[in-house]
């Protein structure tokens, strides 16, 4: 009797879980395992079917010059975008948290880049960067600067991509900081004012430490985005010139869908996932102890 009801309960539970489980397994768990498995196989062709090659793909990756170039680009991309977008987000949040005229409009303007699709953003910035007729060159020409092919020069292309990403991300992170700032009781600032604390002292000693949980959240998102946001490359550079603006995820895409080497793409994907996991866990372990959660 008891066991019969138990079984009935089990079935009932599984039935409730099934729809979500099917979706999760089909689109998340199976692809993840398939990717891992594929990375140990060679890419099959009509004449040479796919076969197990162990770590050969990984060995090839370590010798792949383009891979290392792309990793280097991605590190610079992360270093360029993460601190800058977080700092700007924090600055904007503190600014629009004050009483200022047209505050709603200012907040909205800062947030607008976030709601635009990256493809649209890339198109807008294409107009800025285009040589001769682009906004940058037009303004530069007024001051007598020569025309410059911003996206065509290996020295400037990555910086251009970084600027776009910061522009797009800062407003998004600002929203989190703004929400966190609004939960801080105003009496804290008043108490500090009575003690004679300057605004900078108050920010450094009170506001910033109290925003640390938000900073951790934003930081993890920023790191993930620095590996994830590559849409603009499709419009602007296609990773060029000479792979100067190619990023890891874009390189994975190229391998899978341009060079038709899904197994090597799988290998790169596994490496990317591992790297992200290590970074995220590291951030939690190191920063979590120093953060005051309310």
């Amino acid at each position, binding site marked *: 009797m008891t066991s019969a009801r138990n079984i009935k309960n089990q079935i009932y539970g599984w039935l409730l879980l099934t729809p979500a489980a099917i979706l999760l397994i089909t689109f998340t768990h199976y692809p993840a395992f398939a990717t891992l498995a594929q990375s140990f196989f060679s890419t099959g062709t009509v004449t040479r079917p796919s076969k197990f090659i162990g770590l050969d793909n990984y060995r090839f990756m370590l010798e792949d010059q383009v891979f290392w170039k792309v990793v280097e680009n991605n590190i610079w991309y992360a270093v360029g975008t993460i601190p800058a977008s977080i700092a700007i987000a924090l600055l904007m949040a503190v600014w629009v948290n004050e009483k200022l005229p047209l505050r709603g409009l200012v907040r909205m303007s800062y947030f607008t880049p976030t709601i635009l699709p990256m493809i649209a953003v890339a198109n807008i910035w294409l107009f800025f960067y285009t040589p001769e007729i682009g906004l940058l060159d037009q303004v530069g020409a007024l001051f007598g600067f020569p025309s410059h092919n911003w996206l065509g020069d290996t020295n400037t292309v990555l910086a251009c991509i970084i600027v776009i990403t910061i522009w797009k991300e800062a407003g998004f992170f600002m929203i989190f900081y703004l929400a966190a700032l609004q939960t801080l*009781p105003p*009496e*804290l600032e*008043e*108490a*500090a*004012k*009575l*003690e*004679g*604390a300057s605004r900078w*002292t108050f920010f450094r*000693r*009170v506001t910033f*430490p*109290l925003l640390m949980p938000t900073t951790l959240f934003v930081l993890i998102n920023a790191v993930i985005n620095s590996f994830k946001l590559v849409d603009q490359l499709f419009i602007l550079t296609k990773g060029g010139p000479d792979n100067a603006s190619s990023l890891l995820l874009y390189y994975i895409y190229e391998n899978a869908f341009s060079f038709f080497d899904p197994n090597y793409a799988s290998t790169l994907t596994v490496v990317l996932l591992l790297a992200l996991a290590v970074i995220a866990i590291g951030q939690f372990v190191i920063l979590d102890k120093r953060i*005051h959660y*309310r």
Partner: protein
Amino acid sequence: MLHNGLGVMPAIELRGVTKSWPGTVAVDDVSFTVDEGSFVVLLGPSGCGKSTTLRMIAGLEDVSEGAVLINDEDMTAATPAERRVSMVFQSYAIFPHLNVRENILFGLKVRKVSAAEQTKRLDHVAGLVGLTELLERKPAQLSGGQRQRVALARAIIAENPICLMDEPLSNLDAKLRHEMRIELRALQRRLGMTVVYVTHDQTEAMSMADHVILMREGCIEQNGTPGELYDTPATTFTASFIGTPPMNLIALTSVQGGAVVAGTDRMVVADTRGENRILGIRPEHIILTIASQARSRGKTGLKGVPARVSSCDYLGADTIVEAICGDQQVLVRVPGRCALGDGDDIGLTWSNEDVHVFDAESGQLVPDAEPLSVAA
């Protein structure tokens, strides 16, 4: 500059201070002085402008009109820090990420007081408020009373002569509030601080204050010692705000030669000049005669103004009897427990020095009215 007879300087003076926002006036032409070393309570119902007044003294709120003087110096436009006042907030405003020690030392660190001095003052203040054992704790690990002490310690350690307190005890439970009231008052006397204390709790005001400034709708209703406010309320508002239960305010009807309690015929005021008088008398000043006792001595034994009991509220030390007298409701405080049932007939008597007569229109005390004693 006005000095009082004892030669005590006013530590704080407000001259015609007004605070207005578009469409509203929160504080309207308020003037008062706070003597050095005294404990002054700003009392009033919520929204009466008492907190705003305090915040204007602190410099956290701009003054629309008038002047704020601190130690004879015009501080109307000074920053909060320049005024050298401490403040205890209702929410305590403790920094949640800093431990007790860092919270207390926050101001000293900001002002770059030497480390040796910091330690010296911290030891002293932590001892004063009883936090010595808790210095390493985070605010989340403290009870409400302990947090209150941290806020207090932070205010004291600055060694500012003036301390402003905005409902500092309202987040504590009743027992703790009572203890802190006594402690706070003792601390203020011991350190010789000038305290301006905002509260809506008249018990706090009565038990702690040297002076009570009762506010209503942005104006000062009455400014005096707790005794003055209790014994000689200037208006019906003061009368009804101070005391638990508050003063009875009984509407009178004019008759030939004086006035009677509306709905009865016993003359209680001999003043014939005014219409619309209100009789004010405290519940403990009414003496009650019980009809059943009177009946045993004969039907005529019921003394004073006749009334009928509508309910009794037993509080332990005394009982508050609610009675209907004519068409007016009257509260009477009777010591101990009383054996009255609903609907019992009683007689109310009082002596004329306990009675206050107010004008019903303006609510002001009519100083030369002639209330009568009501006896047999």
